[in-house]
């Protein structure tokens, strides 16, 4: 199949490398070096989308990031679908599959367009808010229709086969944009020896120089581009990033760059290659050389396929060897607009006319057009376009000198392409990401970057500087400034001589008048992608939406995937005119990251799936895995939850594990508990200040349980601390609380009590903790140690340094199950050895591994709390019935003391932790059940507390629970009710939370 719009020669495409691609199910040809857009245009395809509100046919308007219409679905398989790809930025590759996204049954014949035509008048901005309200019940139906109509492309339904890369970069100078300004800056900075990153969204460096026939030093500009690029590549400290969009400019010169590594190669990345890379760059200085986007003029039917911005027409001709039509009309307010006519003419196709809004334009390009015999119509504008799926002609009329009204009769010209230029809008997006407000510049008719605290320089088009010679100089100067700013000496750079094209003054005009008032004229589009028209903006202003932010929100202007790159300034101009204000009075325009959209995958990088968050393992983890443990996530730790045996359900496993501990001996991997080594002569004093209970008299060799409260008196962590030496303690914390507690200790030490001589170090990972619990635990321990572990020599709440299974160990005789228990701590490198030895020796005692769930049951039988389960940040020690763990005799007002004595904390009837015994002993109350006194009370039913812990106790043969009850400690024996979601009500009695061995005899043996 031929490419009707392809030139025989010219452009930067490689005609020796033909490529095949698919668009809407049909195969077409293009060349290496094409974008999808240039290939589509080369093949003479006009309609690439349907507008979302009116379903109007739309064609390609631009050639870069600003393109609003050519938003296609890409992907050859379900898993590789990419929605909303801008065809102007997608390089063509062999086998590319693309699809227009809107239009039913297809983009060329769209039934919805009939509704758009008929109903369009009913859909001014804000129409949603004014209708679909009645009847209320139908809103859901309306809404689903609205949703279906919106949305452009679709998400893939299968998982992404590719991976993405995040990489941290540092540099002295980051240069954004490798056009003439960026290259000149980069060369200057690189020669000084600075560390440089040069990033450009395009596949090749050169920026606008790629799209023109300009010369530098009399040679094609590409020669200079190649020479500079080559030199830059030779420096070790220069990183060149083509196909890399600087998408976000964050605080303190942190910049993100989205590099598309393989999107130009294939549908799916080659093996072991990242599809895309997100560079996280910290730059000492940033040079923004981002150029400018040409503004289209706003005239009636300016969205008909064939209407393009002038520079894009030149780009397609000069860069891609594609002339996107046969008969061109240019409508312009400035000299630059003539360039597309010159290029079109030189490509051998017909230029019907250049229509210039200025009465007496003077300039070299105009002269050049005249020399080529191109018809120039001055003081006029294209006020309307004819055609539906392609321009068929234009209406030209003379307009007043201020551009506000049509003054003469209308002439119709036949044409299939309209190139438009309303001047340029500097690409200030990045500079506004960090909160800097752009400033309007009347001279260049555009916003330029405003004041900033970032270390940022600008050069070229972003400053409204558009002549190549001047742009190069700005680049050089920005480079010199950057070099000086990073403290280096500049090396000499000689700039090439650019052609000096003399231009006349442009006219400031955005919105072309029509014979009819704006509200009645055929639609004049401001923002193509969101179907915002000049009439819509005027209507918003008429309805009182006067702030530009209101206008944008009411009309949706700028809310498309192009963030209004083409339309925002025109929209502000239309609003300003409607409000009789200037553009700067109307407001400014704020851009947010991203400059262009980037895939979620690229942001997430490798932090997906198994690597989404670390899984922390103890030294015995592999044993648990091999034993078939089910795991529970506790913080980042994977803890054995329970160890099912063949044929067991969870409850059966738990019953077995519980009974083993109560009857013989069980073992728990308690290594995940936080452990903090505390040394210094004030360690004891420090503990006394941070825990609610007393520590002054704890002897070496002893352990004690402590509660940790915030300054508000509320419990946030607990654990046992052991006195290892007079100046040496080992604190344990909850598994999830370890890091927080360590930071808490350091906070108080460093900011409040630096005079206390104490140091804290984490040893959580250093020790494996193997807890053997049960009446046979001493026998088991004795099998593996020669030490005297009798009750006389090694009593409850003692710790000893002994050897276990040949490994030096610290053993703590503490108990969380209420049984005789030894917590064996060994250096973690030997944890697995001791664990296995315990099992060898423990077979005769039916040593049973148990997990967190059994641990929870066993401690609940004893009424021990779990911080985080039985506390929620709103309970103090007395609420927990743990007044015994509070010492108000301490001389220092410990953390939490004052807080728990506030008015609300000492009132009667606070919720207090109690035991709950169901009337039917077989019934286990669900954790989280709410307690009421009168289950028949009307909704909202007064609640008096809730269940925090609840289990079936195999040992006791009935259910047990703990929970909060208002004033519960004074309500022993009273009845409460737990109404459940399924309508049942569980009746229960308030009791002591200690269901087993209230005197603690079992752990003391």
């Amino acid at each position: 199949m031929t490419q009707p719009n392809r030139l025989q020669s010219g452009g930067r495409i490689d005609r020796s490398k033909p490529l095949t691609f698919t668009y809407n199910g049909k195969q077409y040809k293009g060349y290496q070096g094409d974008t999808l857009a240039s290939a589509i245009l080369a093949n003479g395809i006009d309609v690439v989308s349907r507008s979302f509100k009116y379903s109007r046919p739309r064609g390609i308007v631009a050639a870069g990031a600003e393109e609003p219409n050519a938003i296609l679905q890409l992907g050859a398989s379900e898993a590789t679908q990419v929605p909303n790809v801008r065809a102007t930025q997608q390089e063509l590759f062999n086998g590319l599959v693309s699809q227009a996204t809107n239009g039913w049954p297809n983009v060329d014949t769209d039934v919805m367009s009939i509704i758009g035509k008929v109903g369009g008048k009913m859909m001014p901005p804000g129409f949603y808010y004014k209708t679909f309200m009645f009847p209320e019940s139908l809103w859901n139906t309306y809404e689903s229709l609205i949703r279906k109509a919106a949305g452009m492309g679709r998400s893939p339904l299968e998982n992404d086969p590719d991976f993405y890369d995040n990489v941290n970069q540092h540099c002295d100078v980051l240069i954004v944009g490798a056009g003439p300004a960026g290259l000149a800056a980069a060369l200057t900075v690189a020669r000084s020896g600075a560390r440089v990153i040069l990033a450009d969204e395009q596949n090749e460096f050169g920026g606008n120089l790629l799209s023109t026939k300009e010369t530098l030093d009399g040679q094609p500009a590409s020669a200079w581009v190649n020479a500079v690029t080559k030199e830059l590549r030779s420096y070790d400290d220069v990183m060149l990033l083509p196909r890399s969009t600087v998408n976000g400019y964050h605080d303190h010169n942190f910049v993100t760059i989205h590099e598309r590594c393989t999107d130009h190669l294939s549908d799916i990345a080659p093996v072991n290659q990242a599809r895309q890379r997100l560079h996280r760059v910290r730059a000492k200085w940033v040079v923004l050389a981002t150029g400018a986007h040409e503004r289209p003029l706003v005239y009636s039917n300016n969205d008909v396929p064939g209407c393009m911005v002038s520079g894009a027409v030149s780009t397609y001709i000069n860069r891609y060897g594609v002339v996107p039509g046969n008969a061109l009309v240019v409508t312009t307010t400035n000299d630059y607009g003539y360039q597309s006519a010159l290029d079109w003419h030189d490509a051998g196709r017909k230029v019907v006319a250049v229509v210039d809004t200025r009465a007496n334009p003077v300039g070299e390009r105009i002269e050049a057009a005249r020399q080529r015999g191109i018809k120039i119509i001055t003081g006029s504008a294209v006020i309307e376009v004819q055609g539906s799926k392609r321009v068929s002609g234009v209406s030209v009329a003379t307009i007043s000198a201020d551009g506000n009204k049509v003054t003469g009769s209308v002439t119709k010209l036949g044409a299939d392409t309209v190139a438009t230029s309303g001047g340029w809008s500097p690409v200030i997006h990045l500079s506004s990401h960090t909160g800097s407000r752009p400033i309007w510049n009347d001279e260049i008719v555009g916003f330029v970057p405003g004041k900033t605290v970032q270390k940022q320089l600008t050069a070229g088009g972003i400053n409204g500087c558009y002549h190549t010679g001047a742009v190069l100089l700005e680049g050089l100067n920005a480079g010199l400034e950057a070099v000086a700013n990073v403290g280096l000496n500049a090396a000499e750079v000689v700039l090439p001589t650019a052609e000096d094209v003399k231009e006349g003054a442009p006219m400031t005009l955005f919105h072309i008048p029509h014979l009819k008032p704006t509200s009645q004229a055929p639609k004049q589009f401001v923002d193509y992608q969101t179907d915002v028209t000049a009439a819509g903006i005027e209507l918003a202003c008429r309805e009182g939406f006067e702030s530009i932010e209101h206008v944008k929100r009411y009309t949706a202007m700028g809310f498309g995937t192009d963030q209004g790159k083409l339309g925002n300034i025109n929209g502000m101009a239309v609003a300003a005119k409607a409000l009789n204000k200037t553009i700067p009075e109307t407001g400014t325009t704020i851009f947010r990251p991203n400059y262009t959209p980037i895939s979620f995958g690229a942001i997430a990088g490798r932090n997906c799936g198994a690597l989404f968050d670390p899984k922390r393992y103890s030294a015995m983890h592999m044993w648990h895995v091999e034993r078939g443990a089910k795991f529970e996530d506790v913080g980042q730790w994977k803890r054995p939850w329970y160890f099912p045996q063949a044929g067991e359900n969870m409850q059966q496993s738990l019953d077995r594990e519980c009974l083993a501990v109560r009857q013989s001996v069980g073992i728990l991997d308690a290594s995940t508990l936080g452990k903090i080594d505390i040394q210094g002569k004030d360690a004891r004093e420090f503990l006394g200040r941070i825990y609610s209970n007393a520590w002054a008299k704890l002897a070496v060799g002893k352990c004690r349980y402590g509660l940790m409260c915030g300054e508000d008196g509320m419990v946030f962590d607990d654990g046992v601390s052991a006195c290892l030496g007079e100046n040496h303690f080992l604190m344990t914390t909850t598994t999830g609380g370890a890091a927080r507690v360590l930071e808490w200790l350091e906070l108080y030490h460093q900011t409040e009590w630096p005079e206390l001589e104490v140091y804290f170090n984490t040893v959580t990972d250093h020790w494996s903790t193997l807890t053997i619990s049960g009446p046979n635990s001493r026998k088991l321990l004795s099998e593996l140690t020669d030490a005297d572990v009798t009750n006389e020599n090694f009593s409850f709440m003692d710790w000893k340094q002994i050897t276990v299974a040949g490994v030096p160990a610290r053993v703590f005789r503490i108990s969380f199950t209420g049984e005789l228990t030894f917590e064996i701590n060994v250096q973690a490198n030997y944890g697995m050895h001791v664990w296995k030895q315990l099992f060898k020796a423990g077979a005769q005692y039916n040593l049973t591994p148990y997990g967190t769930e059994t641990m929870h049951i066993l401690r609940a039988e004893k009424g021990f709390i779990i911080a985080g389960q039985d506390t929620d940040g709103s309970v103090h020690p007395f609420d927990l019935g743990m007044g015994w763990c509070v010492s108000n005799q301490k001389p220092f007002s410990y953390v939490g003391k004052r807080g728990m004595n506030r008015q609300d904390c000492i009132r009667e009837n606070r919720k207090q932790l109690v035991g709950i015994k169901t009337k039917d002993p077989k019934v286990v109350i669900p954790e989280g059940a709410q307690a009421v006194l009168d289950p028949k009370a009307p909704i909202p039913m007064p609640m008096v507390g809730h269940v925090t812990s609840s289990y079936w106790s195999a040992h006791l043969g009935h259910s047990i629970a703990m929970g909060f009850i208002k004033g519960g400690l004074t309500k022993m024996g009273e009845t409460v009710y737990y109404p459940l979601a399924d309508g049942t009500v569980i009746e229960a009695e308030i009791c002591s939370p200690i269901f087993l061995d209230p005197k603690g005899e079992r752990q003391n043996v």
Partner: protein
Amino acid sequence: MFHIYCPHCAEYREEEEFHAVGQAHIARPADPDACSDKEWGEYMFFRKNPRGIHHELWVHAAGCRKFFNITRDTQNYDIKEVYKIGEKPSVVAE
């Protein structure tokens, strides 16, 4: 993302290594038990929260684990200075 000079490590590090802890220079009352509920509540909860120059406490959590102070403009996020615990800021709101 902030780039923060750690006064102990003596170089700039990425914000990811730090935690913001809140307003700086809130001394724990010397005698908490002598505080009224109101005074204690204000110590715990009431904050300047200024729009502009703010002195705040940070910790170099993934680095040297030291707490230190930052004076920062809360509008443009410009860091005016960093200084160690016990030192006084030289940049203050007018």
